[in-house]
């Protein structure tokens, strides 16, 4: 901070302020207009040629924000042209595309798309898009949004998980109300949070519940409207196609650095083993038909950001499936 060399007269000072306001306001306005033109409108609709009919690994291309696909298994060219989504998942001929609406309060738009990626239904909920899943038949959809300012730490986040049943059209805006059993007794706590649903069939699902600083793997049933905690320290479960194993995030350190590792849990024995990914993974993994598990990672120590995969049995090494991509969703 330097003082002006000599005190300015009131008139001079005012002139300086006026000029500064004009320059700064002009600069601001210019940048705002530039930013407005730069970010083109979101491509809401998929190109006509891009549908769910082609098998492959579908994902969100980070550069364009649109859904793209590459062949499963063998390396091959990328096909682009899907809808713009922040989170995407597809199964059984139904796709779920989560999109954040511009402006505030923060809202998430869940778009239900058919096999040709045309809109079937749209639901708007408060919060930031986070997880998306579709049941194998394509009839049930679940998504999670982060809500800001819900917890007593001002910077805290909490989650809201919704389930939509396409058979009846019924929408459960938040499944927090489902009767929950922990350690054999009915559990009541105001801070129960659900996230990361994965469907076994059109009634049964697995999800994460967090309460009082613990996370649980819960098994839920929509028909009997009940949920039961199976195991501690399991987040973002992903059920294998045969329904016997769950890939999940396990918290291995309490600090903010590298808190999670990918594990697989055998549901019959409740025995778990780590996967061969040494990095912390903050994603809901997706099982590939060949028994591998796919997940998104940010760039870290020389490895590019993108969708990586490791074998589900704990062997092998991470392999890059798609650079600059998130939201892995295999479609057979």
């Amino acid at each position, binding site marked *: 901070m330097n*003082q*002006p060399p000599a*005190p300015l007269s009131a008139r001079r*000072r005012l002139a300086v302020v006026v000029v500064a306001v004009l320059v700064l306001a002009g600069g601001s306005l210019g940048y*705002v207009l530039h*930013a407005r033109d730069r*970010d083109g409108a979101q491509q809401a609709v998929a190109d006509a040629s891009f549908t769910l009919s082609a098998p492959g690994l579908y994902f969100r291309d980070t550069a364009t924000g649109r859904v793209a696909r590459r062949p499963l298994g063998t390396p091959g060219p990328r096909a682009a042209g899907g809808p713009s989504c922040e989170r995407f998942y597809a199964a059984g001929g139904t796709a779920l595309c989560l999109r*954040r609406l511009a402006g505030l*309060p*923060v809202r998430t738009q869940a778009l239900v798309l058919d096999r040709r990626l045309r809109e079937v239904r749209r639901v708007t909920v408060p919060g930031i898009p986070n997880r998306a899943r579709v049941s194998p038949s394509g009839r049930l959809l679940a998504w999670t949004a982060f809500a800001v300012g819900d917890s007593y730490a001002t910077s805290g986040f909490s989650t809201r998980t919704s389930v939509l049943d396409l058979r009846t059209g019924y929408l459960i805006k938040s499944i927090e109300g489902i009767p929950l059993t922990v350690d054999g007794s009915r559990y009541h706590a105001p801070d129960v949070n659900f996230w990361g649903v994965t469907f076994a069939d059109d009634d049964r699902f697995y999800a994460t519940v967090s309460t009082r600083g613990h996370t649980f793997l819960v098994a839920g049933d929509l028909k009997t409207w009940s949920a039961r905690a199976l195991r501690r320290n399991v987040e973002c479960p992903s059920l294998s196609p045969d329904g016997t194993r769950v890939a999940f995030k396990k918290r291995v350190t309490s600090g903010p650095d590298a808190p999670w590792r990918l594990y697989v849990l055998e549901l019959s024995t409740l025995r778990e083993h780590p996967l061969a990914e040494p990095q912390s993974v903050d994603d809901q993994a997706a099982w590939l038909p060949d028994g591998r598990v796919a997940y998104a990672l940010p760039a870290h120590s020389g490895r590019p950001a993108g969708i990586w995969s490791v074998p589900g049995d704990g062997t092998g090494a991470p392999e890059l499936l798609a650079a600059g991509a998130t939201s892995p969703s295999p479609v057979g």
Partner: protein
Amino acid sequence: MYLATTGRRDAPSPSATGGGGRRVPGVVLALGAVSLVTDISSEMVTAVLPLYLVLGLGLSPLQFGFLDGLFNGVTALVRLLGGRAADRGGRHKRIAGLGYLLSAASRLGLLLAGGAASGIAAALATDRLGKGIRTAPRDALISLSGPPETLGRAFGVHRAMDTTGALLGPLAAFAVLWATADAYDAVFVVSFCVGLLGVLLLVLYVPGGAEPVAPRAPAPPARAALGDRAFRRVLYAAALLGAATIGDSFVYLLLQRGLDIPLDWFPLLPLGAAAGYLVLAVPAGRIADRVGRRLPFLWGHAALLAVYVLLLTHATSPLLLVPVLALLGVFYAATDGVLMALAGPALPVRGRAGGLALLQTAQAVARLAGAAGFGAAWTAWGERQALWVAAAALLLALAGATALLPAEVERRDSAPLEGSSPKGQHP
């Protein structure tokens, strides 16, 4: 005689009743304008930062919470350094200006950091550093701006302008996000420009470049202020009451849960309290000038006690909303600036920034401990029990503070810095 008043044609001689009718010193208006503009700039960023980090950069909420907590703790310590540096040679304006400039520059840091977490952390740290540095010198400048009898109103005017900026900031940020379809970088650029304007206003309109009398005498270290009995008592009382404060976020959360307020509306609750503060800051300051600052400071905390009691007795009544937010506004209006006006005159001119910094830090640390304690009590015993405990603690603290606070703060050499002479006062 106060230099700030002797040269003014329209200034009557300081009277025992103080307060009423007289104009607020130009330096206060100038600092108020600087704070208003700067708060627009900083609240723009505060409002969008969680969204930017989590949505734009994909930081996990856990990492964000960690960064946020880390830097909030740093501010308290930097404040002491800022106060000390300002006292040394009376460099209040320069140190405050450096603080404003650092915060403005941190927006460019956010812009340039792109997605790099380390760059963002550095930018956030720079912002908090700037905020920590500037607060005590700025409050010292206000408290040296005029006779002690009018300080309550001076701080009231400053805080009202400051809060106006804080209310406008999020609106500006949301307007930019809306206009650009969520271009966070545009928010940072606009915030940077607004911040620069704040620095410019400070440079042009706030006097304080001149060295104070006897510049070579070393400034007393902040802890020397503790040697003053009156100041010590104010400090202890503020810390005692601070430790019995549960933190606004808890009050908003209790309101939200009790009344089942939709989450979309949750961010509006603090705006309600801020509006109350804005409206009441000047009247509270004037009352404080008239009846002494001790009573408003105590009554302000009594208003907070009333908030606890309302939450305990009418937890689910929708009629609760307005009185609770209004009482929170009263609490801030009657305590924030008033405390500075209460303590300022007890401090020697050349140790004022350091002393005020010490007081602010003590209060902030005590409030942090109070909020953490309440959080722990809530977890252990449930919200109602925790609230009962908080109410009892506040009642005890009020009794203690009533006994501690001196009836009339002894005035030290209250002559303002030469720089705040009338020459520089007309905007």
